[in-house]
C-alpha cells in the first residue's frame, strides 16, 4: 500500500544490444512459428495438407534448373532495386519512387533500342542504352532530392508522385510506338535482329544480370560501410544537426545519395529491358520499387541481409504460382502466407529491440535486486 505511483500492467523498454547469435535464434524461431501458423491457416481454410503445400512451393522455386535460374534472376532484380533504395533509406530519405526510377531506366533503354537499333553496332548500342538508363534513373531521383535539399519538401510524397509521372510518360510512348497499330503494345523490341539485347553468357540468359547485381551488392556494401560518403549519409540519417555541426554539407549529401539511388534503379531498368523482357510497358517494373522497400527494411539496409530478405519474397512468389496451379488456389492465398511470415519476422524485430515488463514480474525483479544489494 506504500506504493503511490501506479505501475502499468505492461511496460515497454528498449533492450540493450542483443548478441547476433541470439538474434539469429529469435529469427529462426519466428520463421518456424510462422510456418506452423501458415500450416494451421492452410488446413483450416482450404483443408489441404500444409506439408504438401510447402513441398509444392519448394518444387515451384527449385523444381528444375530453369526454375532455379528464374528464382535467382527475380531475386537479383528485386535485390538490385533494394540496393538502390538502401543508401537513401539509411539517410532517412524515404525514397518511395523506386518504381518510377526503374521505369524511367526501362524507358530510356527501350528508346535507345527502338531508335538506334538499326544504326549502331551492338556493343555501342548496349553501352549507350546503359548510360541513358543510368542518367534517366538518376534524374528521376535527383528532382525530389533537389527540392528536398533546397526547399525541404516532403520527399515521401514527391517521390511517390514521380512514379505516376513516369507511368504516364511511358503510357504515352507505348501508344506512340505501338505495333501493330491500335494494339496499345510495343511487343518485343528487335525480336529478329536482337539489337541491344544483352549477350547470353554460359548458355544462361540470366547469368549476366545475376553477376551484375552481385557486383553491385558488394560495391554497395563497401560504399555504405567503409567509404566517407557512406559515413556521411549515415550521420545525416541519424541527425541532420549533428551532420551540420560536424561540417557535413547535408544538401550535397542528399543530392549525391539520391543520384546514386536513382542511378542504380536505372541499372535495374536497363537489365529488365535489355536483359530479360525486351519490351516496354507501364508495368514492366512490376512493383519492384515498392516490394524493394520491404526488402530493404527487413534487412535493416544491410546489403547482404537483403539477399536473404529478397530470397524470402521471391521464394514465396515462385512457390505461389506453383500452388495455384497444383491446388487451384488463388494467387491471393500465397499473399496471405507471405503476410503471416512477414508479420512474425517484424514481430520478432520488436522483441529483439524492446523488452516487455509485466507488473508482477517487475516487482519481483525489484525485490530480487533489492535482496541482492542487501
Amino acid at each position: 500500500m506504500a506504493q503511490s505511483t501506479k505501475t502499468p500492467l505492461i511496460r515497454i523498454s528498449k533492450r540493450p544490444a542483443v548478441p547476433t547469435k541470439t538474434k539469429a535464434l529469435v529469427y529462426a524461431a519466428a520463421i518456424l512459428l510462422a510456418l506452423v501458423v501458415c500450416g494451421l491457416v492452410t488446413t483450416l481454410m482450404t483443408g489441404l495438407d500444409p506439408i504438401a503445400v510447402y513441398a509444392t512451393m519448394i518444387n515451384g522455386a527449385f523444381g528444375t534448373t530453369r526454375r532455379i535460374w528464374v528464382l535467382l534472376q527475380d531475386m537479383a532484380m528485386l535485390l538490385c532495386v533494394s540496393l538502390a533504395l538502401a543508401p537513401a533509406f539509411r539517410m532517412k530519405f524515404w525514397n518511395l519512387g523506386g518504381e518510377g526510377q526503374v521505369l524511367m531506366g526501362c524507358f530510356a533503354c527501350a528508346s535507345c533500342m527502338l531508335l538506334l537499333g538499326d544504326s549502331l553496332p551492338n556493343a555501342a548500342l548496349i553501352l549507350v542504352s546503359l548510360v541513358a538508363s543510368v542518367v534517366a534513373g538518376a534524374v528521376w531521383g535527383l528532382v525530389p532530392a533537389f527540392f528536398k535539399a533546397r526547399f525541404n519538401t516532403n520527399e515521401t510524397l514527391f517521390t511517390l508522385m514521380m512514379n505516376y509521372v513516369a507511368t504516364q510518360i511511358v503510357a504515352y510512348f507505348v501508344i506512340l510506338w505501338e505495333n501493330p497499330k491500335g494494339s496499345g503494345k510495343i511487343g518485343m523490341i528487335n525480336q529478329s535482329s536482337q539489337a541491344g539485347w544483352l549477350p547470353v553468357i554460359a548458355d544462361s540468359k540470366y547469368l549476366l544480370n545475376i553477376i551484375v547485381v552481385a557486383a553491385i551488392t558488394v560495391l554497395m556494401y563497401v560504399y555504405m560501410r567503409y567509404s566517407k560518403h557512406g559515413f556521411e549519409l549515415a550521420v545525416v540519417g541519424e541527425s541532420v544537426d549533428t551532420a551540420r555541426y560536424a561540417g557535413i554539407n547535408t544538401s550535397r549529401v542528399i543530392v549525391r545519395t539520391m543520384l546514386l539511388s536513382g542511378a542504380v534503379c536505372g541499372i535495374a531498368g536497363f537489365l529488365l529491358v535489355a536483359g530479360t523482357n525486351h519490351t516496354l510497358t507501364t508495368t514492366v517494373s512490376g512493383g519492384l520499387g515498392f516490394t524493394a522497400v520491404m526488402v530493404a527494411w527487413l534487412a535493416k539496409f544491410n546489403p547482404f541481409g537483403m539477399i536473404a530478405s529478397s530470397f524470402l519474397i521471391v521464394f514465396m512468389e515462385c512457390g505461389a504460382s506453383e500452388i495455384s496451379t497444383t491446388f487451384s488456389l488463388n494467387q491471393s492465398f500465397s499473399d496471405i502466407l507471405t503476410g503471416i511470415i512477414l508479420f512474425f519476422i517484424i514481430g520478432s524485430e520488436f522483441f529483439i529491440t524492446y523488452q516487455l515488463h509485466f507488473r508482477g514480474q517487475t516487482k519481483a525483479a525489484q525485490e530480487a535486486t533489492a535482496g541482492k544489494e542487501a
Partner: protein
Amino acid sequence: MSQISFGRREFLKGSSAVVGAGLLASLAACGGGSSDTATSAGSDTGSDAAPAASDFKAGFIFLHDENSTYDKNFMDGAKAACEELGVTAVLKTNIGESEACQETAEDLADQGCGIVFADSFGHEDYMIEAAKAYPEVQFSHATGTKAHTEGLDNYHNAFASIYEGRYLAGVAAGLKLNEMIAAGTITADKAHMGYVGAYTYAEVISGYTSFFLGAKSVCPTVTMDVTFTGSWYDQTAEQEAAARLIDEYGCVLISQHADSMGAPSACEERNVPNVSYNGSTVDACPNTFIVSSRIDWTPYYKYAIQAAMNGDPIDTDWTGTLATGSVVLTDINPKAAAEGTQDAIDKALKDLESGDVHVFDTSTFTVTVSDTTNANATVDGSGVMTSYMADVDTDADFQGDTEAVSDGYFHESEYRSAPYFDVQIDGITLLDTQF
C-alpha cells in the same frame, strides 16, 4: 487483495501450448495428406479416360485468373476440352505479357506438356521465342497475328469469326430500336447507339462495325458513337464512358468491347438496354441485358490437343466459326429484348451459315476516303468500297499488303485468324481516337 496478473511464465506456458497444438495439427494433417493429393491429381485427369490420353499434358497460360471475364472464358474452355479428351490440364494464371510468359511456356514444356496455349495478345512474342527453343512442342496463341509470317512449324494462331456473333447480337439491338420507334419513345432518326471500345485496334473495329451492320440490317436509320478507354479492363473508365454516351450523346442502347462490368452496370442504373460481350450479365443487369456474344474456345482446344496427341499438323491460322461452335450467343433475356428477337436471330444465323448473307457485304455500307482515314480503301462514286488493302502481315510499316474485298464482301479472318477489318464506315462516329 486479488490482482489479475499475467505472469511471464504463464504467458510462455500458454504460448507453448498453442505451438504444441499447432504442431500436432499439422502433423496430423500430414498423416492423411498424401492420399488427398493423390485423389486430387486423379480427378484432374478424368476417371473414364484412356490411360494414353491422361498421360498427355496440355499447358495453358492466362493473363489473369478467373476474376477476369476474358480469362475465365478461356479457362472454362480449357477445362471443358481437357475433361472431354481426358488429358491432363496444367493451368498457369496471372502470367504477365513479359519474360514471365516465355519462362512459363518453357517450364510447361519442361514438365512434358505436348502443347502450350496462351490467351493474351501481348503473350505472342514470348510464345514465339519459346516455340523456337522447343521445336518438338506445339505452341498455340489465341488472338495473335504472327504465325503465318513467322514460318515456325510448331507455332500457331487461333481466333474465331466473332464478328458473326456480334452481327447477330446487332440484329437483337436493331429490333430493340425498332420497338422503341414503334412505341414512340424515339423517332427513327434518333435510333442512336453507343459503343465502349478498348483500343482503336482492328479486333475492336471489326467488332463494333459488325455489331452496327447487324443492327442496320433490321433498322436502316441506325447511327452509332464509339468511344475508347485505352484499357481492356477498367471498370471506372468503362462505366463513365457508357454514362457519357447515354447522358451527353443521347445513345439509347449500349454495347461494349471491354472486359469489366462497367458499361453493363451503367446501363442498368439508367435503364438503357445493353448488348454484352464475353458472357451473360443478366444476373447483375436483369432489366437491361438483351443478349451477349462470346467465343467458345472448347472446339479449338479440342482440335489442337487432339492433333498434338496424334502428331497431326495444326493449322497455322485456325478460325472458329458458327459451324464449329466457336461463336455462340447466350440466351436472350425476354425482359429486355424486343419481341421476335429469337426468330430474327435464327433467320440471320441461317443466312450467314448458308452464305446468302455476308457480314461485311460492301453493298450494305458506304465508306468515305480522306487524307486521314481509310487510306487503304478504294471506293466508287456512290461510296461503295471496291478494294481494300488490309494490313494482314504484322510489321512496323503498317502497310496494307493483302486485298480483302472480292465477290462483293470484305473477307474477314480468312487470310489470318485474327481480325484485320479496320475500315471506318459511314454512320459510325469515333468520339476519340487517342488510344
